[in-house]
């Protein structure tokens, strides 16, 4: 069981999660970040760090979010690793507000 990044990250990509990840298990593309489930050690540090609540324990995911488990696994394997935080995407604050966060 690992932690999973879901759709709230899309177009935000605040990447505060990356700064607190002890094992550097985040990978990224132009839209969002993904967790490599084989590297994640389930410490849960990223959950509270995310300003838009995009990350959750696999266990807690609603049925309509469960497909993100496989997306994280596949995308993390194909994308470069992220070792420190990036600038949030332009419009991230607006999207955060739209998400009611």
């Amino acid at each position: 069981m690992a932690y999973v990044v879901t759709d709230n990250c899309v177009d935000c990509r605040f990447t505060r999660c990356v700064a607190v990840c002890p094992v550097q298990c985040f990978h990224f593309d132009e839209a969002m970040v993904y967790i490599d489930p084989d590297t994640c050690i389930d410490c849960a540090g990223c959950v509270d760090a995310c300003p838009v609540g995009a990350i959750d324990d696999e266990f807690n995911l609603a049925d309509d979010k469960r497909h993100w488990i496989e997306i994280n696994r596949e995308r993390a394997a194909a994308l470069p690793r992220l070792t420190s935080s990036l600038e949030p995407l332009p419009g991230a604050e607006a999207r955060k507000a739209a998400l009611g966060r």
Partner: protein
Amino acid sequence: MSTAPAHKASSRRYRVAVVGAGPAGFYAAEALLQAPEGVAVDLFDRLPTPYGLVRYGVAPDHPKLKQVITVFRAIAGMPGFRFLGNVTVGQDVTLDELRRHYHAVILACGAQRDRPLDVPGADLSGVHGGMAFVGWYNGHPDQRDLALDLSGRTAVVLGLGNVALDVARILSKPAEALANTDITAHALDALARSNLDRIIVAGRGGPAQARCSEKELREFAALPAGVTSADSGNYQNAPESGVPALFARLPTGERQSSRRRHFTFGMRPAAILGDERVRAVRFIRSKVRDGVAQPDPAGEEETVDVAADLVVACIGSLATHVAGLPLVADASAARHELGRVLDERGGVPGLYVSGWIKRGANGTIGTNRADSVETVACLLADLRSLPEPPRPVEAITGANTPIGRASVSFSQWEAIDSREVILGSTQLKPREKFTCIQSMLAVSRENANQYTN
């Protein structure tokens, strides 16, 4: 013993000592070693073993968290890194002396002291601190002689944080369920003979005030033996998510079962009762409304005595004592700003903190990474203005110095590590830890002799 390899000083202009080889120390070392300024790092620990609370804090039944050690090993392999175990700052070398040999010192030696339970009877036999108890089952050399008496039937664990939940879970699990973990042999033996069949976890606050994580609490529903129950949070609307929801889903009444665990809320310890040994804990009980304890300022609250044969107080930690380090008023951490240590005159040049000694005992392993990155950013910004240390590093760590002779290098630690893994494999455990420093040193010395013979 052989000494740590000398630094290849040429490309690294600066040298920094990091004190404490736990997560905060390793992440500080990583950030320093990556800096373009060119920094060599000596990572000190008072024990011959690195990894701090990953080795001595993380519960033996949480092996996945310990995989972070892979990252620490990679940091130990970075150019410019040295580990100097078995060196106690404040005893083998003073902090002031260290500061004369390094451009800067980062203290990352944690919050090792249990916050004392400040009630009458707290010194009775059978009353222990959470950090001490965790160190005992994890084979910490300081706790190997902790005389834990598990012959009684009831344990009371004070606190609702993750340490309290770890302690309650380890006390509740059948020993068979721990047999194939790296739990230390003396603890496994004691737990296998334990008569405890009732574990009461008592928090001052209500379920909505508990600091434990969802993941830790969820494990109680899946324990292999007995039942878990909890007081009601007396909610108007039942909580839907998080820790409060998990508590609300537990049955409210204590059920009869061979091993029972019960969470009780609004319970402020007022005294430990007993003659020589603990017999009961006296609590002042507050009403809990909507998940939150409501202390009555008039003081007309109910007094409840709960029978107890063992008490483990998991009520927080105090910063590790370092002579001369200024602490905040409640002693939970050092006085600092963004990691720069502050005394009454302002910033102390070249002295920094990271990890629990900086922010208090909170957060996850990775919190220390962000914490150390912040501290190291301040240190690097200060680096050019710090005076050149008057004495060279080799004058205290060289082959013919007391530290040089006594210290354990990373490769010597790896010899200890391999031996522990071999010892564990014969019992189907991932490792069997040495709990005696002399045994660790003997193994590291054997390895050195192999190379010289």
